[in-house]
């Protein structure tokens, strides 16, 4: 079990039992200090000035790109687009690749457990292009329906996009196997890595997808920055979705040409300070080691599943065992509404998410409008889980169940 709580100033400042890391993670001091230090010393805009500060800033910004590439096993930093986050990355692929290549009747295959960020952009491009959406379901125990997935592949989807780890169920689909099968049919494969990348070692070579998007802020880094990784040939096929400074090779009055990849996808002044914070987050996680992060996550997930299963009338939505699942655990307690649970738990300094988790189609499949969700990060410990259980017992008492 990791013991890194002292690295997180928010915990000392009273964050309490913070169990909403799947929404956004707390930041280690190393990330905060790196940004502060940078902004207060050598900060300037990037890729523009010939002066010393700008050159240094550019080097540090580009360092984030190469660290991102290393972190996910990409062979070349040019395969990494720095963007606002997972949502922006997925929108870029849907509009920029899908908008160029999808034709009326082309199928876009998603899963019912996607976050809205991996549904709505595809709906938008489907409306524009006449492509149609298709969905793979889930099994009774909250995993992706692999047989259903294979059957849907027979329909020759042009795009297959799925989550690396469900933000509601916690289930971790076999990304490499799914990507291999989907690519064999000629589909573009897009992985939403928002929940997976912060919790498991991820290697884009072994997953074998075409695109992977993830966010800095769920990875102990700052908000406002994330990564879209893409195979270079796929990035070349993708149109920029934003025009402006920085993304051009040449601009005439009536037309422009684009800069080379990945810069053509980074119009305007990028999140420079955040890039420095993201580098610090990669460094921090690599120092712990992603294998250790995954082991910590698995151990606590198993502990939480065990303790939760002992609570009367508590129902876990998602896999009941730690196998192929991560530490995002959704549940309901009797007829207590999740918002009431969140309020009761909050009185004990236990922060959980309550609601539809930006996954309304999945909530419909589960047959409930809302769940409560506790989620785990490197700073989570057994006491956080124990506090959750005590709070749930109090809720049971208050509601007489």
């Amino acid at each position: 079990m990791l013991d890194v709580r002292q690295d997180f100033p928010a915990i000392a400042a009273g964050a309490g039992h913070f169990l909403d890391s799947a929404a956004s993670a707390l930041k280690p001091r190393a990330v905060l200090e790196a940004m502060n230090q940078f902004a207060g010393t050598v900060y300037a805009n990037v890729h523009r000035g010939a002066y010393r500060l700008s050159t240094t800033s550019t080097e540090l910004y580009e360092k984030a790109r190469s660290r991102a590439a290393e972190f996910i096993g990409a062979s070349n930093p040019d395969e990494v687009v720095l963007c606002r986050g997972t949502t922006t990355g997925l929108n870029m692929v849907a509009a920029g690749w899908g908008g160029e290549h999808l034709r009326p009747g082309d199928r876009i295959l998603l899963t019912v457990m996607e976050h809205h960020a991996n549904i709505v952009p595809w709906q938008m491009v489907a409306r524009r292009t006449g492509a149609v959406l298709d969905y793979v379901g889930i099994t009774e125990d909250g995993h992706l329906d692999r047989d259903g997935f294979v059957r849907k592949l027979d329909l020759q989807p042009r795009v297959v996009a799925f989550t690396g780890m469900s933000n509601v169920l916690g289930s971790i689909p076999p990304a490499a196997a799914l990507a291999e099968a989907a690519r064999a049919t000629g589909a573009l494969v897009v992985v939403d890595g928002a929940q997976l990348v912060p919790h498991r070692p991820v290697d884009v070579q072994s997953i074998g997808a075409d695109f992977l998007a993830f966010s800095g802020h769920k990875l102990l880094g700052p908000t406002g920055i994330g990564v879209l990784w893409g195979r270079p040939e796929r990035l070349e096929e993708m149109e920029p979705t934003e025009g402006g400074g920085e993304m051009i090779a040449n601009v005439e009055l009536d037309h422009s040409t684009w800069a080379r990849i990945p810069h053509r996808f980074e119009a305007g002044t990028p999140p420079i300070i955040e890039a420095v914070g993201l580098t610090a987050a990669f460094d921090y996680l690599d120092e712990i080691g992603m294998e250790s992060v995954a082991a910590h996550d698995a151990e606590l997930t198993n502990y939480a599943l065990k303790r939760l299963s002992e609570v009367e009338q508590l129902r876990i939505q998602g896999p009941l065992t730690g196998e192929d699942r991560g530490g995002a655990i959704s549940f309901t307690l009797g007829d207590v509404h999740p918002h009431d649970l969140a309020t009761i738990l909050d009185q004990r300094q236990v922060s959980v998410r309550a609601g539809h988790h930006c996954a309304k189609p999945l909530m419909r499949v589960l047959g409930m409008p809302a769940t409560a969700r506790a989620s785990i990060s490197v700073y989570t410990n057994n006491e956080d889980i124990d506090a959750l259980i005590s709070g749930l017992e109090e809720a049971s008492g208050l509601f007489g169940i």
Partner: protein
Amino acid sequence: MALEELYREVILDHYRNPRNRTALEEPHAAAEGVNPLCGDEVTVELTFGGDVVAGVSVRGHGCSISQSSGSMMGEAIKGLDREAISVLSRRFQESLTSEDSNSESEFGELAALQGVRRYPVRVKCALLPWTTLDEALSA
């Protein structure tokens, strides 16, 4: 403040046994309210005999606060005329949102919801049926 002040028995009773759930066949006034943040939903339907509420239906799903507030609201407005309803609605909403409130006595059962004042994020739950009612009346 203890959570018992928020989750009073009368609130849990209305949550579990909501009143006036049957849809009205031909409502004279109706509105649907949604809190997009949390997904809570309330539908309010009214019929009038002259200016006075004759039939009420309040349906929806959501947390104990929004649903009990709707159930108690339906009971409270039966037999009131439009003017009296809008006064009650305004005064009740003010009682939850204004700085100081000492008007518990005028609200009967609804006073049980005053506990929500201490939980700012939950005030909107208690208000949802009332803003939906306002919308139905102004349509």
